[in-house]
């Protein structure tokens, strides 16, 4: 066995727990096979005296414990360990220490962890005490503390530096968790102590508080979800239309898909045929036509007939009249019922004109009945067809007996001319005792015989006569065209009076109103409706006679525009005034036999030839 002197020991560490004592540990080297003793020697800073370790046992094996008396603070110690055996000695390297800087306190003691509540939320309160050896109370040692926390199942600790305080709060705990808490301390210049013994704490379950909140949230959201589902369900059709718009299928009236599937094409296509389409133009066409007749009475005639031209006539005549007259509203045309103011004229004439009176006497004698009316009516039936803007407008017009002198046969091309001639002829007819025209009147239309020489209007139609058929209602069709205003007018001013059928009363009274003529027949005429009831259909007689009565408003509505017809105007006025005595009884005209249809006044037109019948006022 080989023996050798001991190996050099080495000082491992020296520590002081409270800065009052300290302990040094060394590590011995190999002993060399011989029992080796170790000794520790130290020397203090300012002296050369070598002292040996006073205590080798208190601190355990290979340690040297310096008690209070041997410990000097702020003094450098030079410590050496010597190993000695039989063969030799070994000195360790000297170590110089200052106790102040080797302080490592004991871990904090009496670490307590409690669960406390802060507004319903729990937290941990950790409290501890400094190690009992460390004298912090006198201020000899100042310790700072540190603690660490973790859940039981976790790995990493959560560190908290507590400073010099001996209490600490830990928040944000997991409910129902088990926590581990440890504390350690350190002097202001020294080493950290060891961790204190672990303290276990279990946080109580406060999950129920959270749970109630979650339950509330869940219930609320469920309700909302259910409501949304229900709304969607209710509106699923709309949604379906929105998202998947339906493909439009064929929507043909009368189209049957089943038939198509069956393959019977005849039935299918027959169903598609609309019987009423295309509408017949002829029947309706006339409905939209407005007919009017213009009657020009020659001044020279015995019968002074006023011609009053309404606005529409002028409109129609003039080329310029366009849209206003042409409009489908019929503002110009449709409701205009031209009534010759032959009655006033007649009256005037009768009063002032001897020609009138014979006629009138004649009429009185013979034409008490509706014959003369029929004549007039026949005249009225002749409509001049105005072509303006390519539309045919016709008015049933009542025109007074035409002046005589138009001898030329009526040219159907010129409506007004015709009308005038007709009027002329009729007037000429009227001058002569007329035959009864009852039978003529009995017909729905009037036949006018035009004969320059035989102006006997009311005779039954002779082959000589040219017949002009005039319809009493709107169906009056006339051929003609616009003619110049300065057309075949008589030199004398003729004014035609027109009466407009305003409406049919619920008492079956036909309300008429005179259409005020504009000034002059040469254009520029404008209608001035007064809105007054000019005449009123009192009723239909048993003989299908239309009884008209005039209701005047006491105004001068005699459209005697022309100055030349002043007397006529005056007479008219007088007549008007006379007539407008508000006595319906006084102004009864002989009725005009009308068609049954006419009684209904479906088209609002009345052939007011009847108006110019005997004025019985």
């Amino acid at each position, binding site marked *: 066995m080989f023996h050798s002197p001991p190996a050099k020991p080495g000082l491992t560490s020296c520590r002081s727990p409270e800065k009052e004592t300290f302990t040094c540990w060394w590590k011995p080297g190999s002993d060399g096979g011989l029992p080796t003793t170790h000794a520790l020697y130290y020397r203090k800073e300012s002296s050369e005296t070598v002292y040996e370790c006073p205590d080798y046992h208190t601190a355990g094996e290979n340690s040297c414990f310096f008690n209070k008396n041997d410990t000097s603070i*702020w003094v450098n110690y030079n410590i050496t360990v010597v190993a000695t055996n039989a063969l030799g000695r070994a000195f360790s390297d000297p170590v*110089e220490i200052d106790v102040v800087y080797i302080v490592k306190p004991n871990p904090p003691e009496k670490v307590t962890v409690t669960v406390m509540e802060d507004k319903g939320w729990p937290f941990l309160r950790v409290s501890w005490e400094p190690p009992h050896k460390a004298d912090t109370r*006198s*201020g000899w040692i100042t310790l700072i503390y540190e603690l660490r926390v973790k859940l039981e199942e976790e790995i990493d600790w959560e560190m908290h530096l507590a400073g*010099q305080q001996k209490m600490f709060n830990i928040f944000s705990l997991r409910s129902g968790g088990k926590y581990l808490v440890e504390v350690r301390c350190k002097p*202001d*210049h020294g080493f950290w102590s060891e961790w204190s013994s672990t303290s276990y704490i279990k946080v109580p379950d406060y999950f129920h508080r959270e749970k109630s909140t979650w339950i509330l949230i869940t219930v609320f959201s469920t309700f909302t979800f259910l409501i949304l589902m229900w709304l969607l369900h209710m509106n699923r059709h709309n949604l379906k239309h929105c998202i998947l718009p339906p493909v439009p299928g064929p929507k043909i009236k009368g189209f049957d898909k089943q038939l198509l599937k069956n393959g019977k094409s005849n039935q299918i296509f027959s169903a598609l045929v609309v019987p009423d389409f295309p509408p017949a133009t002829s029947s309706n066409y006339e409905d939209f036509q407005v007919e009017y007749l213009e009657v020009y009475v020659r001044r020279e005639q015995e019968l002074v007939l006023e011609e009053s031209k309404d606005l529409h006539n002028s409109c129609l005549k003039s080329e310029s009249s366009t849209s206003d007259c042409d409009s489908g509203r019929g503002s110009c045309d449709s409701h205009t019922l031209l009534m010759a103011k032959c009655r006033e004229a007649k009256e005037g004439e009768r009063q002032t004109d001897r020609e009138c009176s014979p006629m009138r006497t004649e009429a009185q004698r013979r034409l008490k009945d509706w014959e003369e009316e029929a004549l007039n009516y026949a005249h009225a039936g002749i409509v001049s067809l105005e072509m303006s803007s390519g539309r045919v407008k016709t008015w049933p017009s009542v025109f007074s007996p035409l002046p005589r002198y138009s001898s030329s046969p009526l040219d159907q091309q010129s409506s007004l001319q015709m009308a005038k001639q007709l009027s002329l002829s009729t007037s000429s007819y009227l001058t002569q005792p007329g035959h009864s025209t009852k039978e003529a009147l009995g017909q729905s239309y009037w036949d006018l015989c035009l004969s320059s020489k035989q102006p006997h209007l009311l005779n039954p139609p002779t082959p000589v006569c040219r017949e002009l058929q005039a319809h009493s209602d709107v169906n009056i069709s006339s051929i003609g065209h616009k003619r110049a205003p300065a057309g075949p007018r008589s030199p004398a001013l003729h004014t035609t009076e027109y009466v407009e059928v305003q409406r049919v009363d619920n008492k079956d009274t036909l309300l008429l109103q005179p259409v005020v003529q504009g000034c002059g027949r040469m254009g520029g005429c404008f209608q001035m409706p007064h809105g007054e009831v000019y005449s009123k259909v009192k009723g239909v007689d048993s003989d299908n006679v239309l009884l008209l009565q005039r209701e005047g408003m006491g105004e001068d509505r005699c459209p005697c525009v022309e100055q030349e017809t002043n007397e006529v105007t005056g007479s008219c006025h007088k007549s008007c005034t006379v007539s407008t005595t508000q006595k319906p009884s006084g102004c009864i005209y002989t009725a005009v036999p009308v068609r049954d249809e006419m009684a209904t006044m479906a088209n609002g037109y009345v052939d007011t030839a009847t108006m110019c019948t005997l004025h019985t006022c």
Partner: protein
Amino acid sequence: MPGNIRSVSFAWMVLVYLLFCSRRASVGAAPICANAQAGCHVLSLANLFDRVIQHSARTHSISNDLHSEFEQYFLPSKNHIGRVSRNCHTSSILTPNGKDNAQRMAREELTEVILKLLVAWRDPLWHFHQNMAHHHDFNNFSSNKALEMSDMVHELRKGVEKVAEKMQVLGIISNTVSSLASPEASLPSDSAEWRLMKDYNLLSCFRRDSNKVQNYLKILKCRIVPEHGC
């Protein structure tokens, strides 16, 4: 318009002046009023102690940092037994080396010791700073720290003097402390010693002494006003 600018600038200047005045008034340390004179902001002894203790702690930490830098810079041998002569120039000042000794020492003595130490270190630190600045051996950081250390010691001494003053006023200690007014009187005649010391030794010595000062102050505080943090 210029009139407006002038008035505005004048108002602004007045405002700034007032602000600065107020700041100066607040920054300046509130004078410790010995007799609680009117207008003085009286600090309690505990507050004073806390202040000086904090100051001393700061001083010690700076000295510790400088010492560590020195050790790293010079790569001294381990344990440097031979190097440490530890002939601190303040060795002549008797200081308690243990807790018992410190606790047994009277308050006045302890206060005196503190003041002696602080006084003794004012000049060496100043020269140390000068050496460091001139030699460029150390970086600016160390030089600044040395300067700061020097200033701190100066301030600390003033603070401890004030504490002693307060304690004397309060009758806690006798009036024997005031005899340390003259700093040069404490230094031994062989004042050239400290010039011979190397800088490293100087730092080691100062590190220890600052620790002593801090510890003594704490002991004093916990002995006189133990209610806070003891």
